[in-house]
């Protein structure tokens, strides 16, 4: 067997490192989706009437909608009635980390994200979403000092209903797409962040999601509002335990940036991708969108996608305010039977708006990796500017890399550039590194790392480390 083949073999067989599940007592809603489920969730969370009505409206829209079929992967039949829409660990009301289930802490330990240590070392406030309900929130006081609100969505509904009511569903309307409608109807919890005027958030906000309970889809809802001239960097990272049954994750993230505000949103996603036969794995169907509502505002998405059986999301930015800018940096790695159809939407409405898209796809094994992006320049977006680069790297001859950019120009002063390349790692590059004493495996890892560097550089420090680790695991032993 040639070296290459050996590498491919080991790549295909390297197992999911974070595969374990935690035995914590769960409180579950009965399976099925109907008005009663929604009333149950709403009642459990002690929600006000308007939110219940909003959920019910979303449910009606959901029931009217059909599954899309334009996507570039095989969408398995999803039985929405066979999902439990609410799961929460029974223990609640924790005041300090010491009260957190030691098993949960251990879980995080295994992930290399010990809460305690992180708290001390990195100064990151961690809002732990374990399945659906927040169990611990740290650094709250420090944030409160600055007036920053960072809490679970449920708490926000109770304590800051005006803010939630004002912004909920304004970026991703309930009828946006079928999964957004589903989320709007059944979302169980999530995170809420509000940065007041002129405040630079003193620390990076971060949430760790984990899907844990068998058969419970996770429907998170994140809402971030950055008021005038504020700044926040928000991190979201996730790993999920090994499961044989497919799990559906349909989250919605909404970001609102007002005048001069800046929001940086980073994701590392490493959910269970299924085994090497393509069995199991998480369906990651997420709607993420930000709006640069005010002038001179900025939203930046950075994502590292290595997990999930199917990743299907297009984090986008609506550039409404004049001089606003949007960025999208993405590394998507697929292997075995993973499928990814991801990209971004940049919708230029305001004058002098700028967007930049850098997408790096890596496909190995029998996986398929698609970039699908929209760049739309409206007639009033004078001097709008877009630059898009999407590269694909192919490892192995049974994988696919696809590019579907949609470019729409309606303004005669706008400039749009798009370029894409697809290739494999050049033999001469590997040969060069071999000559300098690196074996092929290391050479490939080095090249892939360099290939993804432009994106990884945009991640906050701690995340960059984890992201590199994830890429390394994916390439481990491994790749090429």
């Amino acid at each position, binding site marked *: 067997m040639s070296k290459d083949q050996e590498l491919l073999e080991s790549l295909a067989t390297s197992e999911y490192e974070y595969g374990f599940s935690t035995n914590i007592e769960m409180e579950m809603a009965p399976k099925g989706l109907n008005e009663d489920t929604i009333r149950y969730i709403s009642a459990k969370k002690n929600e006000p009437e308007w939110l219940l009505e909003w959920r019910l409206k979303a449910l009606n829209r959901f029931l009217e909608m059909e599954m899309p079929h*334009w996507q570039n992967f095989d969408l398995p039949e999803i039985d929405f009635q066979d999902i439990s829409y609410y799961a929460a660990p029974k223990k609640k009301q924790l005041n300090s980390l010491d009260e957190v289930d030691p098993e949960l802490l251990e879980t995080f330990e295994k992930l290399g994200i010990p809460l305690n240590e992180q708290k001390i070392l990195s100064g990151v406030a961690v809002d732990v979403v374990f399945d659906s309900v927040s169990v611990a929130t740290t650094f709250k006081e420090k944030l409160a000092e600055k007036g920053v609100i960072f809490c679970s969505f449920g708490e926000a509904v109770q304590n800051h209903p005006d803010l939630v009511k004002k912004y909920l569903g304004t970026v991703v309307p309930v009828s946006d797409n079928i999964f957004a409608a589903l989320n709007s109807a059944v979302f169980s919890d999530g995170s809420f962040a509000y940065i007041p005027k002129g405040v630079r958030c003193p620390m990076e906000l971060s949430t760790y999601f984990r899907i844990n309970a068998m058969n419970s889809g996770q429907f998170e809802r994140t809402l971030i509002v950055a008021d005038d001239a504020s700044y926040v960097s928000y991190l979201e990272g996730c790993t999920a335990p090994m499961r044989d049954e497919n799990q559906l994750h349909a989250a919605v993230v909404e970001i609102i940036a007002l005048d001069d505000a800046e929001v940086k949103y980073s994701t590392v996603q490493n959910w269970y991708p299924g085994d090497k036969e393509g069995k199991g794995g998480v369906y990651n169907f997420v709607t993420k969108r930000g709006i640069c509502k005010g002038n001179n505002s900025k939203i930046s998405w950075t994502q590292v996608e290595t997990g999930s059986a199917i990743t299907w999301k297009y984090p986008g930015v609506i550039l409404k305010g004049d001089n606003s800018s949007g960025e999208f940096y993405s590394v998507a790695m697929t292997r075995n039977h993973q499928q990814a159809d991801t990209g971004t939407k940049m919708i230029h409405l305001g004058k002098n708006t700028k967007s930049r898209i850098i997408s790096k796809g890596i496909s190995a094994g029998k996986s398929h990796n698609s970039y699908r992006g929209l760049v739309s*320049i409206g*007639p009033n977006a004078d001097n709008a500017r877009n630059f898009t680069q999407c590269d*694909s790297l*192919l*490892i*192995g*001859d*049974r*994988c*696919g*890399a*696809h*590019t*579907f*950019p*949609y*470019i*729409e*120009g*309606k*303004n*005669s*002063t*706008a*400039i*749009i*550039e*798009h*370029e*894409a*390349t*697809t*290739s*494999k790692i050049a033999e001469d590059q590997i040969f060069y590194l071999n000559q300098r004493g690196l074996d092929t495996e290391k050479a490939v890892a080095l090249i892939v790392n360099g290939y993804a560097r432009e994106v990884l550089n945009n991640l906050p420090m701690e995340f960059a480390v984890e992201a590199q680790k994830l890429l390394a695991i994916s390439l481990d032993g491994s790749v090429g």
Partner: protein
Amino acid sequence: MEKGIFNNFYTYLTGAFAGRQQAARLTEPGWLTEKREAAFALFAEKGIPSRKSEEWRFTNLEKFLSHEFKFQQEVIPERSGLALEELEASRIVIVNGRFAADLSDPIPDGMTFLDTKAALADARFAEKLGTVADFPDNPMLALNTAFFSEFSVLHIEAKAVVEKPLHIEHIYTSHASAAFIAYRTLVVAEKLSEATLIETFHSEGGAPVFVDFVSEQQVDEGAVFHSHMINNVGENVCFVQHREVCQFRNSVLNNSNISLGDAGMIRNDLNFRLKESGTETNLLGAYLVTGEQHVDNHTLVDHQMPHCNSSELYKGILHDKSRAVFNGKVFVRQDAQKTNAFQQNNNLLLSNQATVNSKPQLEIFADDVKCSHGSTVGQMNKDALFYLKARGIGEETAGRLLMQAFVFDILSRIEIPELRDFTEELLHKKLHTENLVIA
């Protein structure tokens, strides 16, 4: 389920089908009536494709097909020789889809041209009808198969090297009422042959015309085929073309697709299937749209076998309220290792009311490939404009010069001088239209 357009024209067509079939049974072979039957069933079910279909997302046929189109009866044009008179070429005139022998020149040695009757009688060609372009789910193709009235064949013999280009002049006439014209051609370039085909499209009369043209081409082993399309129809014409080309081992195909005329609407579906290895495919395209013109170019280069090269360059300029669509697909199948595929689309968008939709698309299933695409939308270079102005050239003249230079990139690659001059003339004329706002 895709939702089609079921308008008056659809009703007219579905109503007319049975009668046409009955008439066709008397003159046409049985296999053809069967084929038409099957195609009609598909069309009747799906209707005219609407914007709900991904392929027609940016082109709304409903807008263009709102007239009361009837099958075209007229046959005689007022004049032929509408273009390229100075070109040394054998001319074939096709009026409303029908071969007009009395207006055409004799065919050069090494080639044969067959009209409908002769083509259907010759099993070599008749059996190919609908097999090159055979996609059971394409309603526009089905529309043509069900209703085409004329079918002509151009055959290039094996090893024939025909120096003199063949010029097919397609003329559409519509003096009286809104006309629907559906017809198809088949080109078979046999082994090791080499030939040049120039196709120009013209129209006469001012009544609305809907042209549905299908062209099937087969380029055999080692053949070299140069094909040029110059679309110069009037603004009353809605022109829909589906061209399906199969290339075999070591064949070379050069295609240029020039839309610098006044056409109201042009939709080209150009599909190139690279069925064997060692082929080369070069595609060029240029469009200049003004007023409310709509030009939609869909191209597909389907790399099925290893060691094939393809390159594609489309450039266009948009003024006024026009719209241009470019969708360039490149497929690289699993077996197509060592593929080189290159594609580029550049647009000059010069009006806030114009819209450009560019969708370069790569679908790659093999790893040892070099594929890239690029797409830009922009304006004239300010520095270049300034440079020209600084040298005493007025803003408008400078703008025209830059636009000419932009398209020149394409036109300069046309190797036949007379044809190149003709396209440059078209461009020049278009750039000097009154009311054209420049810069």
